[in-house]
């Protein structure tokens, strides 16, 4: 399981990359993509969607099951990674490069560091 040190992590197995100006890139961690199995479909949110803490921001479908990606903070969708519409398997192959969306978070709450996340697994 890899856990890049420059990223922040949530309990829900999301990773966040700080892009400055309250904007973050996010995706799912190695642990998550491994647990899901081969991903066949990613349902992305719409740009400008406003997500409340605890809401589903995206849905990932693998051959085994459908999982909802929950955002533990209020955020707005700035951009989505449209590559994933045609090549969802990229999330398995390179989960830290295959970001799901770029979001704007006004109040970033508690996140974990790479060590804290690894320990929590």
């Amino acid at each position, binding site marked *: 399981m890899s856990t890049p040190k420059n990223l922040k992590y949530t309990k829900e197995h999301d990773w966040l990359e700080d892009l400055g100006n309250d904007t973050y890139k996010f995706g799912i961690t190695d642990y998550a993509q491994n647990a899901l199995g081969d991903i066949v479909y990613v*349902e992305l949110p719409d740009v400008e969607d406003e997500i409340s803490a605890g809401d589903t921001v995206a849905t990932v479908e693998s051959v085994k099951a459908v999982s909802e990606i929950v955002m533990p903070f209020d955020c707005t969708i700035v951009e989505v990674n449209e590559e994933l519409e045609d090549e969802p398997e990229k999330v398995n192959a390179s989960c830290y490069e295959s970001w799901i969306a770029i979001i704007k978070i006004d109040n970033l709450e508690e996140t974990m560091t790479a060590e804290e996340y690894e320990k929590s697994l």
Partner: protein
Amino acid sequence: MTSYVPNTKETTKHMMDVVGIKDAEELFKSIPSELRLGGDICIDDGKSEIEVRNTIHKIASTNKKYGSCFLGAGVYNHYIPSVVSEIASTQEFLTAYTPYQAEISQGVLQAIFEYQTYICNLTGMEASNASVYDGATALAEACMMSITNSKKKVLVSKGVNPEYIKVLNTWCKYAGLEMELVELDNYKTDVNDMKNKLNSEIASVVLQNPNFYGTLEDMDSVDQVIHSNKSLFISVVNPISLALLKSPVEYNADIAVGEGQPLGNPMASGGPYLGFMAATKKLTRKLPGRIVGQTEDIDGKRGFVLTLQAREQHIRREKASSNICSNQALNALTAAVYLGAMGESGLRQVACKSMENAYHLKDKLSKVDGVEVYQEDIFNEFVATFKCSNDELEEKLKENDILGGLYLGDNKYLFATTELNTQDDIERLVTIIKEVL
């Protein structure tokens, strides 16, 4: 393979020996005695085959089958070629249940694949599921598919079949969704009213074409309005009409649904019917039920699989928009056989004749003193408004072996025609109406 294989006394004794009991009664030991019936269920002795036949015939004879039918309202009396029932009632199709080890049932899968292909051909859409129960639930399922986190409301034209609206209303209520109706102007959707009711909460807008009253809706102009609001466009369509009218793909519908009964399935006093659902590629994974796909096996031979398993049971589970887990396999097969038998030109003939007859009847009726028809462009149905109410009419029609149009209240009747209505029929209907008014 015989059709009924009972347990013989020997088989039963053998089973009891293996399990270690002397009497089948011992299997029920764990049920408290106060809950047991303590005797036989009081039903009559069995009847002989002759008695059963007579009893059933007597009951069946209370049904009246009319020689001539002008009743539609969502279900239509089209001709069913004998090849359709012949093929649909072969044992392998008639008795087969839903394939759980799907890939072993190549025949059933191929039949469903053919059905799905026909639905895509008719609607122009990119994907179809293996069917759902009927037109009403197909519409409800389509609305469920359109719901997102921020959009939980659907707009429905009053031109949609009122029974479908009732079903949708029930679904919305229990799914925590809202539904709002769009008004009609002379039996056609009021696009201005629709524009006023559109906002960012609207997940989808539903129109029926031809609508419940028979009017041809302006699906093109509605397409732009709906899509510029970023809502989905759901169209409810009559599959026979698609041989003549613009298909859903041509006006950019996102989901096309409807009642498949007109395709080779009898009217049958209400069912079983056939709900078809077709969608764009983007929405394919949101379709409920199952979707059959074509592929190649390890030796390069064509084979069929459940590409998308019953979404509710296998993959999406509680995250599915539906709980159906099933389809109307036999009715879908029947529809596929009908379409295969009729072909493009046959279907077009049926549609043309149905439409021509409606225009003839409309023409003749509007010339009768005391009858008004306000609609211009129709398919095979229209509303006739009588100057006064008529209790006599239905009696008179019944005496003449004619099943008249649906009474809508307020002196209005909804008349439908198909290729089965003859010119004679139409004359007689008009004459009787003239007499009665």
